[in-house]
């Protein structure tokens, strides 16, 4: 399945991208994370501190993804 992941802040800067398209075999956030680390090595050291948001809600890594999901990688935020 092909999914698109939005990137922000330090992750967008490390990847040099605001959105990345990833092909995943197993359709979980965990598999997506592994694939992101493989595809964009500069992201790898940041992923430990990141969470995924699916359809604008934080989810656990075992969350199953479907093609219509809006997926975002959320690292350290800095509002205020």
């Amino acid at each position, binding site marked *: 399945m092909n999914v698109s992941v939005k990137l922000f802040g330090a992750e967008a800067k490390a990847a040099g991208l605001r959105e990345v398209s990833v092909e995943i075999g197993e359709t979980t956030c965990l598999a997506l994370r592994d694939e992101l680390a493989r595809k964009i090595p500069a992201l790898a050291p940041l992923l430990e501190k990141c969470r995924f*948001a699916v359809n604008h809600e934080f989810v656990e890594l075992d969350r199953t993804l479907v093609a219509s999901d809006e997926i975002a990688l*959320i690292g350290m935020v800095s509002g205020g």
Partner: protein
Amino acid sequence: MSVTVKISDGPLPASAEPWSFPGAGAVLCFDGIVRPSEDGRPIVGLDYEAYEPMATRMLTQIAQELFERHALLAIRVEHSRGHVGNGEVSYRLRIASKHRKEGIAALDEFTDRLKKDVPIWKTARAPLSGEGSGAAGREGSGVRGQGSELGDRRE
């Protein structure tokens, strides 16, 4: 329960408009203001990016959780996106409660949660060449291009 959440472009008004709630004994207002330096380097301001509608949803959810934990009457939160210059207000949180202690605790907790769980990011904007010393020509550390709203907004 009265919760108002607003994310808007540019700095918030320097002066908060009147706000209270019937029966309140304590009304707290916290203004977060952009400071003239970041990590010891002079800046001209901050550029904020918010991932919407998630940012508004998270702010609303945090407000609702605090209502349950503290005996609050009303919460109103405003946050900027885009550029906010030094000395300008980027974040304003107002809480009305019957008593002071619960309002102060909620104000502190809300802001801790904001800084942990709300998808808003800031990028420092350094002075342009000639505007400051030691940072000539540097222009923050933000991401460029790829449809960056912030990138598009830079002068």
